[in-house]
């Protein structure tokens, strides 16, 4: 198909979709309306289980099984990237050259690194109380480590980041989520049911039953997954070289 024909086909399809979508939007409840039956019930269930952050309650309690699927997607995607970005037979590893880093960049990166790392861990730990949670905090913590790459050089990053251990950590965290779910099966009758632990005092770190545990498992999994992913991409960019030089 020529580019022109493809563009016309796209425009026809897009126009059809736009018309149908606009017609459907006109029948939707008005934006900002007061009727949110699922939201109201989710808030009630979350408060009944002493979880201050309702979004975490939905993710790690009411829809914990969905989050298991989501975590599996993340795990499978990381596995796929590791396989796709491996070193092939016709490539070799070159030692990365230490690069010159401007002094303000180095200073800023080394000051911000611990702050960012602690913020990431804080966001994970308070996932059941304040906005945030395992997914967000895990990304912040994993990104913080990579400030070392900006502030120092690639070899410094490799010293604090043995990729093998993070791969093991990723798998362990995924298993921890599953095991917590299975514990629900023993304690009551349902997989991932939030009934085995006391709900605790509202708005304290240990409130919410299994929500903090699942949240921590996800935080660890996401942090490890991001580190492994970025390590594979950085390997491709910095270390692995083909036959022809680059």
């Amino acid at each position, binding site marked *: 198909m020529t*580019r022109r024909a*493809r*563009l016309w086909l*796209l425009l026809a399809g*897009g126009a059809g*979709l*736009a018309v149908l*979508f*606009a017609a459907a*939007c*006109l029948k*939707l409840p*008005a*934006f*900002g*309306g*007061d009727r*949110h039956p*699922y*939201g109201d019930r*989710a*808030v009630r269930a*979350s*408060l009944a289980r002493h979880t*201050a*952050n*309702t*979004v975490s*309650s*939905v*993710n790690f309690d009411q*829809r914990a099984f*969905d*989050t298991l699927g*989501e975590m599996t*997607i*993340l795990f499978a*995607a*990381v596995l*796929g*990237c590791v396989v*796709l*970005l491996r070193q092939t037979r016709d490539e070799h590893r070159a030692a990365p050259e230490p690069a010159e880093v401007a002094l303000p960049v180095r200073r800023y990166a080394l000051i911000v690194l611990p702050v960012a790392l602690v913020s990431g861990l804080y966001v994970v730990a308070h996932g059941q*109380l*304040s*906005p945030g*949670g395992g*997914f967000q905090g895990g990304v912040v913590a994993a990104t913080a480590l990579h400030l070392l790459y900006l502030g120092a050089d690639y070899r410094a990053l490799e010293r604090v980041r043995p990729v093998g251990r993070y791969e093991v950590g990723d798998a362990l965290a995924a298993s921890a989520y599953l095991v917590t779910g299975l514990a629900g099966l023993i304690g009551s009758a349902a997989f991932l049911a939030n009934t085995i632990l006391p709900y605790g005092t*509202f*708005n304290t770190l240990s409130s919410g039953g299994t929500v903090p545990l699942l949240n921590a498992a996800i935080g660890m999994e*996401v942090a490890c997954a991001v580190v492994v*992913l970025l390590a*594979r*991409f950085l390997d*491709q960019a910095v270390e692995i070289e*083909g036959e022809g030089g680059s």
Partner: protein
Amino acid sequence: MSAVLDVLPYLVAGWVFLVGCYGLATSRNLIHAVGCLSVCQAGTYVLLLAVGYRDKATAPVYSDIKPGSRPVVDPVVQALTLTDVVVGATVTALLLALVVQISKRHDTVDPDELSELRG
């Protein structure tokens, strides 16, 4: 005026999605195409958050407000959006890994030049 505002956020979501589709179909560079897919997905974020919005409501987090004192927006669609973001990020990572391999094997990232099969 308010009749327009009642549907505007939904229409914006559809517009963002269609713009992403247009970019995907006309893209001459696979990295650009992966970016366009993210734009498509951003349309779904806007749609989900628009569905959950409630006038004069705050975030569904009770660490600093008393339960029942203020209306909150729908937490279910916010959780769905979080799932959406995570899946979007993983798909982007996987697609970019594929692009790295394509550029190594075929020396091009233009989808129009990737017509021949190679063993």
